[in-house]
């Protein structure tokens, strides 16, 4: 039971992370179109 929950949590976490990355890219693309700045790749990660 505990193990299955862990696995589900990890997989969901991975999916969530990918989702965040995709949505961040999309959002950055939108703001860039409106004349703001795009995603400053890498800089914000560290």
């Amino acid at each position, binding site marked *: 039971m505990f*193990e*299955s929950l*862990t*696995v589900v949590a*990890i*997989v969901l*976490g*991975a*999916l969530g*992370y*990918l989702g965040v*990355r995709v949505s961040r*890219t*999309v959002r*950055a*693309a*939108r703001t*860039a*179109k409106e004349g*703001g*700045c*795009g*995603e*400053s*790749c*890498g*800089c*914000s*990660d*560290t």
Partner: protein
Amino acid sequence: MENSSTGSLATTGLAPEAGPAQLTSQLRVALIGNPNTGKSTLFNALTGMRQRVGNYSGVTVERVEGRYRRSNGTAVSVLDLPGTYSLSATSPDEEIALTVLLGLAPDLPAPDVVVLVVDASNLERNLFVVSQILELGLPVVIALNQVDTAAAAGIRVDSVELAMQLQVQVVETVATKGQGIDVLKRAIERASALPLPERSFELPAPLFRAVQPVEAVLVQAGFHPSTAAMEALRLLAIAPEGHLAGIPGLEGEAERARTALEEAGYNARAVEAEVRYGWIAEVVEATVHRFGSAGSSRTDRIDAVLLHRVFGPLIFLLLMAIVFQSIFTWAEPLMTAVEGLVGGVGNLAGSALPEGDLRSLVVDGVIAGVGSVVIFLPQIVILFLFIGFLEATGYMARAAFIMDRFMRGVGLHGRSFIPMLSGYACAVPGIMATRTIENPKDRLATIMVVPLMSCSARIPVYTLLIGTFIPPIAVAGIFNLQGLTLLAMYFLGTAAALVVAGIFKKTLLKGPSQPMIMELPPYRLPNLRSLLLTVSHRAGLFLRRAGTIIFALTIVLWALATYPKTEVVADVTDGAAQEQQLAGSILGRAGQAVEPIVRPLGYDWKIGVSIISSFAAREVFVATMGTIYGVGSDADETSVALREQLLAETDAAGTPVYTPLIAVSLMVFYVFAMMCVSTNAVVVRETGGGWKGVKWAAFQFLWMFVLAYSAAFVVYRGGLLLGFAA
């Protein structure tokens, strides 16, 4: 990024007023200068290891920042601006430099102090950008760098006289040896308190009268008078773009100024260069002293050999052969070590965790998945070491010069050659190396075709298929059919890359062929520390991706290959159980769903599954085949069990599934198909990021897939027609 709203036109050039207030907090220093002045080495000497590398928002210009501590404990942040010959914004690099210095960059306030790095052995050309920056109304310190190499070449620059002429502090430095760094730091401290530099030459009367109204318009628009004077002179040669676009009446006044100048007998477009270089000539006359013999320099002598019409290209070819030989031979033991390490970690995790899904996730999913990517790190590091070394010695520009004629044949620049060559090891560093290509269209065309070069991730696929299905027959006495097949795959990819690049340059990325304008820097010994820092930054970038996106993807892929679970019939071998399990999973069902698509190529659903799973990375194909054929997922391309299974596999009617023809068609598919998440990610980033990057990456994936499918189809169907059934 706390001060992201700074950058309205009204504050332009007013930074010094903010200077003293910020002394108590953080001092912002920007480092700028011509390329090849040792600017990055100076930056490393100032900041040490405390630096971070990113991109300026929206563009693929590398943004390097670092910091050091002052004696009173407060931090000084240092921004290493890209190397620029002028502030005329003729390239993305120069545009970024100008925007940052004017305080108009979206997330960067204007610097408090500008450190201008100047090559002592080439003062004349270096002073052009200096003369422009002195007029920006920012505190400036000049670092007169490489005074040692200048002295060796018989050039002495009188730094005291230079300071008098330019009215700013001049510090002599030898960045490679760390000399003068402390003096430079002290000069940076003092800079804000000193009077601001300004233009120290008078314009000829007609020119002065002509630019006066343009300056007035700019001052009206909120520019600092000194900055306005610089911009007005610059505007004679350019159209008001970027931050100058949309200022009312500016273009009209600029056009009137140009007409007035032409009437007075001046060449309006050349007049800025004329007056600035005229002033520079006087400064050089007063400050540069030459001594010793004026014989041919060391660089001349080396160039006589390396740029020789016969030996030059030969030496270049020899060098490239050595680079490649070492990428494959030196990396071999390291890759084995990484493989062993990954395996060890897997075993450790396997024994620590109880049997079950969690263990499978950690061992088969995460560790094996991330491991299959990290294994390429040694090759990437070695390749970057070579590229960095050749770049630092000054040879890279010569290589581009030598290859220019050849690359021009397909409409590309000589600089496209190295990235394409790097693609043989791995497309990721190849695409990152395209940053040296200035023309955006050339750069895009190169990025589009780099993944066609057969990278080392394809080697496991080729080895498995060739080793199993291509007989080791001797051809023409000395050649082996297996080796020839491998060579043919490499040749196919290379030829396709050149042809496709030519097609792109003639259609989608059509544009005038970019003429070569390139400085050939003097040869010098590279600085080991700088070299290692650059390599570690690039390797870090690669590892970060393996640790984030690829990590997440492997987990998802594992889940797709594991769920939903099927009841396995008892008393079958482990391998057969694994196979049934996979067939019932989402991934297995997807493979069966795509079977109609891959059927025309002669593939069955199992190959379909392997292809789908290899979207993450090509070499996953081998591991998936291992899983499917029940020999365990730790099968590798040399596994005898897997090879026997493949040869013995038959369909319902009893005919073999795999024939040499299918093997060849499958290899051709992998030559062309873009199956690599790392490359996709790096293409998104390098083609501009955001939607634009995603569009280019998607486009690249699609055309490569279509090409791969058609080529595999032609090979299979053509082969059948020609009677190569078995």
